[in-house]
Structures are given as structure tokens and as C-alpha cells.
């Protein structure tokens, strides 16, 4: 009896969908062909005749591939943005910021670096920074599992740091405009130290967890894909 899944996989090779969608399409079409084949067998046809008749129900494989691609492309674009980027990013952001809030309330005091003659300080919540690699790893896993590309996965991993960067870029200029009594040099130093403490260091911590998980998962899925061909 024909291996319908293998046959459909070969005929639809090059279908540009994410892994999960690709698997689902192959499973669905091969199930259809298998049932058609079994129906012909029940009608008393020989195995090879039934297989030929079942294949005759496909039409043109190239047209099928092109149409599936076109039908799934728009849907794919919309849903993939949500499942590969927005949901993992939001989960990561909420977990990271929730933990920070808890540690600020119940945890040890932050490590503060101050320079004499300068009001701006550099502060680190060390326990929070230590949890960030785990959060980065979780972000990479969630995004990669949904079929995210490397760019999407790393945007998701860095999302908490990027959100804080956005906040800095918005809040500080507004603070300068609203309160004209603040010395612009203090604001500039505070901005640089803030970016360093709240964006660059957390981003590095997130990447420490996210990068190995991404590398591991992409290697794993590539070898699985090759084995499945």
C-alpha cells in the first residue's frame, strides 16, 4: 500500500508555509487520498488500480500547491504575526515586568552605582537580572514553537527590553518639555545610565537564555525535517 503522507510531502515540497501548517496540509490531503484508495478497494478494484484512481482525484499537483499557497498566504500572515510574535512577546513582557514588580516590593534592594557630583545613578535588580535568561529562553521557545523566523524569535526574546527602550525614548523628552527646571545634563546622564541599566543589561541577560534555546530548537527541527524527507 502506498505511503500517502510521503507521496503528498514529495509532491508539495516547496510549499512555503510554516512547519505546523505544512504538516497539517500533508496530513489532511494524505488522509483524503487514503480514504479514496480504500473506497476503491472496497468496490473490488485491485491495489494498483485503486492507487491510480485515487491519484487521479488530485488534479494537477502544481495547481494544488499554488492554490494552497495563495489561500493560506493571507491567513498565514495575519495569524503568524499574532502567534509567533505578539502572544509570546506579551507573555514574556508580563512575566518579566511582573517579576520585577514583585522583587521591587519584596526582594532585596537594588545594587546602586552613584558618581559624586552627579544625581543620576545606575541601578541593577540583580535577582531580576538572574531570572531574565530563563524568561528569554521561554520567549525563544514560544516563538520558535509557533514557527517564528530567527528575526521574529529574537524580537520576541528582546521584547521586554525593547518596550522599556520605547518608554525611555518617550518619557524623557516629555519630562524635559514638561519640567523645564531639570538640568538637561542630568537628564542626558540619566538617559544614558537608564538605557544601560534597564535596556542593554536586561537585553544581554535575555539573550543569554534565548540564544542557546533558539540554536538548539532550530538544529533539532532541521534534523527532524531532514529525517522526515
Amino acid at each position: 500500500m502506498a505511503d500517502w503522507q510521503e507521496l503528498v510531502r514529495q509532491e508539495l515540497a516547496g510549499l512555503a508555509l510554516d512547519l505546523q501548517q505544512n504538516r497539517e496540509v500533508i496530513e489532511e490531503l494524505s488522509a483524503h487520498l487514503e480514504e479514496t484508495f480504500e473506497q476503491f478497494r472496497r468496490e473490488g478494484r485491485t491495489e494498483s488500480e485503486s492507487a491510480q484512481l485515487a491519484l487521479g482525484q488530485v488534479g494537477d499537483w502544481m495547481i494544488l500547491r499554488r492554490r494552497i499557497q495563495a489561500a493560506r498566504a493571507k491567513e498565514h500572515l495575519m495569524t503568524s504575526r499574532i502567534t509567533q510574535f505578539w502572544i509570546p512577546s506579551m507573555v514574556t513582557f508580563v512575566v518579566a515586568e511582573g517579576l520585577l514588580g514583585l522583587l521591587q516590593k519584596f526582594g532585596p534592594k537594588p545594587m546602586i552605582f552613584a558618581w559624586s557630583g552627579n544625581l543620576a545613578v545606575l541601578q541593577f535588580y540583580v535577582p531580576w537580572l538572574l531570572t531574565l535568561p530563563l524568561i528569554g529562553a521561554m520567549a525563544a521557545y514560544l516563538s520558535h514553537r509557533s514557527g517564528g523566523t530567527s528575526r521574529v524569535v529574537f524580537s520576541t526574546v528582546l521584547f521586554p527590553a525593547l518596550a522599556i527602550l520605547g518608554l525611555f525614548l518617550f518619557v524623557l523628552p516629555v519630562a524635559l518639555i514638561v519640567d523645564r527646571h531639570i538640568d538637561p545634563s542630568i537628564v542626558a546622564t540619566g538617559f544614558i545610565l537608564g538605557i544601560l541599566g534597564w535596556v542593554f543589561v536586561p537585553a544581554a541577560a535575555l539573550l543569554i537564555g534565548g540564544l542557546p534555546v533558539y540554536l538548539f530548537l532550530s538544529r533539532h527541527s532541521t534534523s527532524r525535517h531532514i529525517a522526515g524527507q
Partner: protein
Amino acid sequence: MIGSGIKRGTAELAVLSVLQDGPLHGYELARRIEQQTEGALRFTLAALYPMLYRMEQQRWIRGSWETSANGRRRRCYRLTPAGKKKLSPLRREWAELFRALHRLTKVAHG
């Protein structure tokens, strides 16, 4: 020659009408349509599945994986509220078109 728009319209009407009776997977759906139209409407896979995916994208139908009693996984399609809403005007439009064509052929042969 029947245009692709008309062909697509009849195929969509057929799918929505059959799914009104209950959820079906692709193979059953194609078979049911073929049986109920006495072979007048037959779908190749190249016609059926892209159409199902497009209709799913338009939220007229919804597909979900189900495991049958014999342990086979099948993707079953069911009509959504939006699909139900789409069905009645679609039926009306097609009925009007067939009535018009019927009148036209009667005049032509009368």
C-alpha cells in the same frame, strides 16, 4: 463557458449547504456533494482544499482536528455563524440566476 467566478460561487454554495447538516471532513464533504448532485459536481483535491482554506479564512467555516473511533485523525469542517448568515443570500442569488436562465431559455425556444 462558465466563468471561474460562477464556478467558485456554486462550489461555495455546495460546501455551505452540505455543512449545514453537520460537520464533515474533506473526503466526506466531497463524497456527499457528489452523491447529492448525482455526480454533477465533483471536486478534485486541487479544487476542494484551497477552497476550504479560503472559506476558513473568510470565517464561513471552521476546521478542527478530531480523532475518529478507529483512531484516525481527520480535519472536520463545520459551518460558523458567519457561514450560516452567508448561506441564505447566496441561495437566493443562485435561485434568482437559475430562474432568470430558465426564463431566458424558455423564451429562446418558445
